[in-house]
């Protein structure tokens, strides 16, 4: 197991370098000059532009810029924003907020998603199953921002049950609505996946054995069926982090959550490359690590998988 983890970590390095290079290139090679953009429509002072370019290292060749960036990165230096604040400082403010939001979303996703999916899977082909199927289809069809405004309009503006904006990210009640919105899409997928694996595994031979052993239904479903059905769901949850990140940008915008999504969105508006690359780099790292974690969890859940 230890050797497997080490090998996986080593394999991550080229992917990590490749992905950060990709995002770096996307930010720096694509058209649009961030320094010029600071002046907007007005004419810029060429000398000032040049000095700013130099300050941010933008006058260097691209490979040099990337190398410098990576060297700094390994020393924990994410560079500075155009405003002069260290990017790492901005991120350390924003990341915990997003993390809390993601935690709320993930909890909702797991509890509601698996519950709903199991309920439908045990009734495969019946009205309850069709109901859940159509419900999840509708949820999946609604883009996050539609869902977000709809939820905000109904639960905050009209009913007044929950606050429309998040002022204090430590307040769980305030995070409930954005967390719910962020969770909805993945929750629908979790529900469908759980439903499918439940319905499929119900027909497995070992389920018949469990029945023949005279086990009570609670045990057949709760132990034999659930243990087998959770495996693909756990895999899904791991790979879903990327979607959660994308959804967070939109959700944070709608509910005014001061998290990474907002930070990134502001940076995009100002074409502030350092922050964009920094935030995405952290995201990539998190996604890679979570995928590793899921693979290891996979081995725990499924003894047939052995990592040498």
């Amino acid at each position: 197991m230890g050797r497997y983890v080490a090998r996986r970590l080593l394999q991550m390095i080229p992917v990590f370098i490749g992905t950060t290079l990709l995002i770096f290139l996307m930010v720096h090679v694509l058209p649009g000059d961030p320094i010029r953009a600071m002046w907007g429509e007005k004419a810029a002072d060429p000398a000032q532009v040049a000095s700013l370019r130099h300050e941010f290292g933008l006058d260097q060749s691209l490979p040099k810029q990337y190398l410098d960036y990576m060297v700094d990165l390994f020393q924990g230096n994410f560079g500075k924003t155009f405003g002069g604040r260290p990017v790492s400082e901005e991120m350390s403010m924003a990341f915990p907020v997003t993390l809390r939001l993601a935690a709320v979303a993930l909890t909702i996703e797991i509890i509601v998603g698996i519950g709903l999916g199991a309920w439908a899977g045990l009734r495969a082909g019946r009205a309850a199953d069709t109901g859940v199927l159509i419900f999840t289809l509708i949820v999946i069809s609604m883009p996050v921002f539609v869902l977000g405004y709809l939820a905000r309009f109904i639960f905050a503006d009209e009913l007044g049950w929950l606050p429309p904006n998040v002022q204090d990210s430590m307040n769980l009640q305030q995070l409930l609505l954005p967390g719910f919105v962020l969770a909805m899409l993945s929750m629908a997928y979790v529900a469908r996946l759980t439903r499918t694996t439940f319905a499929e595994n119900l027909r497995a031979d070992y389920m018949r054995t469990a029945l023949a052993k005279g086990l009570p239904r609670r045990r057949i479903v709760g132990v034999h069926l659930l243990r087998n059905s959770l495996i693909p769901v756990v895999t899904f949850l791991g790979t879903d982090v990327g979607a959660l990140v994308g959804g967070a940008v939109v959700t944070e915008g709608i509910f005014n959550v001061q998290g990474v999504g907002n930070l990134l969105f502001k940076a995009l508006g100002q074409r502030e490359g350092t922050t964009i690359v920094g935030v995405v780099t952290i995201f990539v790292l998190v996604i890679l690590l979570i995928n590793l974690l899921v693979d290891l969890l996979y081995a725990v859940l499924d003894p047939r998988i052995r990592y040498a």
Partner: protein
Amino acid sequence: MTTIEKTTSATARVGEDDDGTPLLEVRDLHVEFHTRDGVAKAVNGVNYSVRAGETLAVLGESGSGKSVTAQAIMGILDMPPGKIPQGQILFRGEDMLTMAGEERRKIRGRKIAMIFQDALSALNPVLSVGYQLGEMFRVHQGLSKKEAKAKAIELMDRVRIPAAKERVSDYPHQFSGGMRQRIMIAMAMALEPDLIIADEPTTALDVTVQAQVMDLLAELQREYHMGLILITHDLGVVADVADKIAVMYAGRIVETAPVHELYKRPAHPYTRGLLDSIPRLDRKGQELYAIKGLPPNLLKIPTGCAFNPRCPKAEDICRTDVPALVPVTEQDGTELPGRGSACHFWKETLHG
């Protein structure tokens, strides 16, 4: 009847042997599957019975309804699409089909246990064999986790799995095919049931391992004086272990007989065909006999005798009248106990 339920199995067994009620009796059982192509009639009026200590072999091709009958007895039929429109399954004289679900569950595993064909898929892949064996004791006898594990090791020893103590925490895929089947047998034996249904227990195994597993099964059966229903399509397996044989075709029993008599003198053309298709050394060089045609489509079972399109002896009556399973006698009318045939021309087949 509930009093019998509550007495210990040992005393019940003795009592039952004396009063002559069979352990299990299947009466006029029908099973059908409702599919999108129509109604598949898998079992069409099966009757058979097993006594304690007795081995009944149910013989037939795939699709003959032998496994479906077993699943109906076990109460593990998928319903829907399966349906039991009529029939009775009496366990110690009590119809299990009319029992409440919970009552029936308590019989499963404890009184009637089942051994499945493919142990790899029949065992839960993500639970250790120790857990799956111990589960029987935890659920039915309320043992603690620790006690159950000790019992599981004991069971594994019993079915002669080497190094049981070390292997109790292993998972099914870590065992060889023969060992896995032993685990299946151990699981079925766990609570010393009165009746075991073994559905093709050796089909998935190597020939050399087959014999070992069959011997083990026979030995345990003798020891615990259990009834055994052995479902197979392999005539070779049957000869050594079975007391009596029921041959099934298209959801019906076409012939019943004590094991050796069936081999000596079959009373149904289908049984004859089956016996003739066994390769024999003394007929080396000759072409191997095969029953012509295919097993019937259960959605459209032929009228009359279901075997008529494939039967070398078929005549007009075979295409119109369904032959009943009738007792078979010697030419002089002497009864042949335990023998029966569902052929219009059983006399010609038996004596001709």
